[in-house]
């Protein structure tokens, strides 16, 4: 099992130095996790490090391919409010 970095990653470097397995590498358009190296931090930390510092909801998937930080979990902004605001801005 391994974590993944997916679209949404802003390449902010926060996770890379924290990874105890050196599994994260710089890539374009966003950073990636080397699946074979990722241990999900088991044995090193109680919480997976990349998912614990990542500021972008949805940018990291856990071993079950679910967002480690689902919409609203980090910013506190209800997802429906984001959708509403997008519609408002586009209607201007």
């Amino acid at each position, binding site marked *: 099992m391994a974590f993944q970095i997916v679209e949404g990653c802003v390449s902010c470097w926060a996770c890379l130095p924290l990874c105890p397995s050196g599994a994260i590498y710089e890539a374009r358009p966003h950073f990636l996790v080397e699946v074979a190296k990722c241990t999900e931090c088991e044995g090193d930390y109680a919480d997976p490090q990349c998912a614990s*510092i990542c500021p972008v909801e949805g940018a990291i998937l856990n071993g079950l391919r679910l967002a480690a930080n689902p919409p609203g979990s980090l910013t506190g902004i209800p997802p429906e409010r984001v959708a509403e605001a997008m519609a408002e*801005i586009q209607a201007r």
Partner: protein
Amino acid sequence: MHLKVLSRDNPVALDAESGCPSGGCGGAGDALSGLSEVIREKVRDHPCYSEEAHHHYARMHVAVAPACNIQCHYCNRKYDCSNESRPGVVSELLSPEQAVKKVKAVAAEIPQLSVVGIAGPGDPLANPERTLATFRELSEKAPDIKLCVSTNGLALPGLVGELCWYDIGHVTITINCLDPQIGARIYPWIFWNHRRIKGVKAAEILIAQQLEGLEMLVERGVLVKVNSVVIPGVNDGHLEEVSRVVKEKGAFVHNLMPLIAEPEHGTFYGLMGQRGPSDDELRALQDKCAWDMRLMRHCRQCRADAVGMLGEDRGDEFRLDKLDDLAVDYEKAMVERRQVHAAIEAGRAAQRKGLGESFVSLSQLERRAKPAMRPVLMAVASEGGDLIDQHFGQARELLIYEVTAREVRLVGRREVDRYCSGEDTCGDGEPLLRKTIRALEGCEAVLCSKIGYEPWGLLEDAGILPNGEHAMKPIDEALAIVYREMAADGRLDPPASSEQRLTA
């Protein structure tokens, strides 16, 4: 022009006993007068700390620090736009090597450069390797340039020693509150000891780290500015307390900045309809928290990759893809920089001398003034911030002063477009001029070195008294005289009315 090269006193050769390897640390704790002298020297050519210096010197931020260890409700880490000007926004991230290259290119092009800061776009101290590598190189390659850093403070206590090592003389900590309950409404989470922590506990840790970092820096003689974002209904009622405490702990200045929050920024506050403070609210709060009016009213809340004089951003000229094309003779540039700085200081010294000789005592004014006279806002066109030495039509910004019977003090600045750019465009300026006049709302007089016929009339129509009589006089003196004249004309007996304005 003959350049008299002034010797620059070493501001930091104070203390060999503090155990700090570099002169920037320690030793400032002796006499109060000594401290203020040290501070004066440290801010003298720092455009972000000294209101006056920002008219003469340039600064740049190098965006080497992308990671952050906390989330603030006014920040969106996804944001990157070259048309936005606010903290935390950058166009391109630099490696430490690229940052040093950029600093050299900017220093060669803009010899007024006196300060290089690292301000993000994340938290510089959450990226210690990148930030410190940049400082290490710069302290060697450009030892005369002041280095500064701003931080949320979470990682600060652990890095104070290193910051001192590289002679970081100025540190800004953003402290928005001291009450963790309020903090929980500003910071949704922090990353601490390998865990993401949320709520009041997160705010508690952050605040404790901020205050510890502040104390450690002050102990080592580093100048600390505290920034607070004014968030109406969240921390505005609490900022006086913040101001009192950080002052007590030795912060050098407390800078209150308005919240910037729009839905399109994608921030929590922007999307949830949290408003920023009005100009009046901000000013009232700044008045309550201000220790020295000459400082920080000019803060521009710059981007983390801003380049140039405050209020201008020349970042585009120095983008990575253009750096290779800029031929930089850095040795020559350093010599030129020294000369330019010396010339600036010589000019300022001459102005100060003029100021001292011709200064009209405000106490004289006070005796003549009726006690109940109201304060008046006046605008000034000035190049250097000392003298009334700018043509109204050439001004890019006007300094706003509040004048009372007791004092003349700077309370803000308003950006305006230059409506006069020479013969070719003459006559096209009126729409711009009207915009400028709208920007002067609330002001009752404008002082400048010269002013054209057309703006004179429009200003009068708007109830603003144009005044070109005090060209090349010190601002304080001229404003005091104009106030006295207004008093003598009965214009200061409340309430103010547009019928009272003078004719040309």
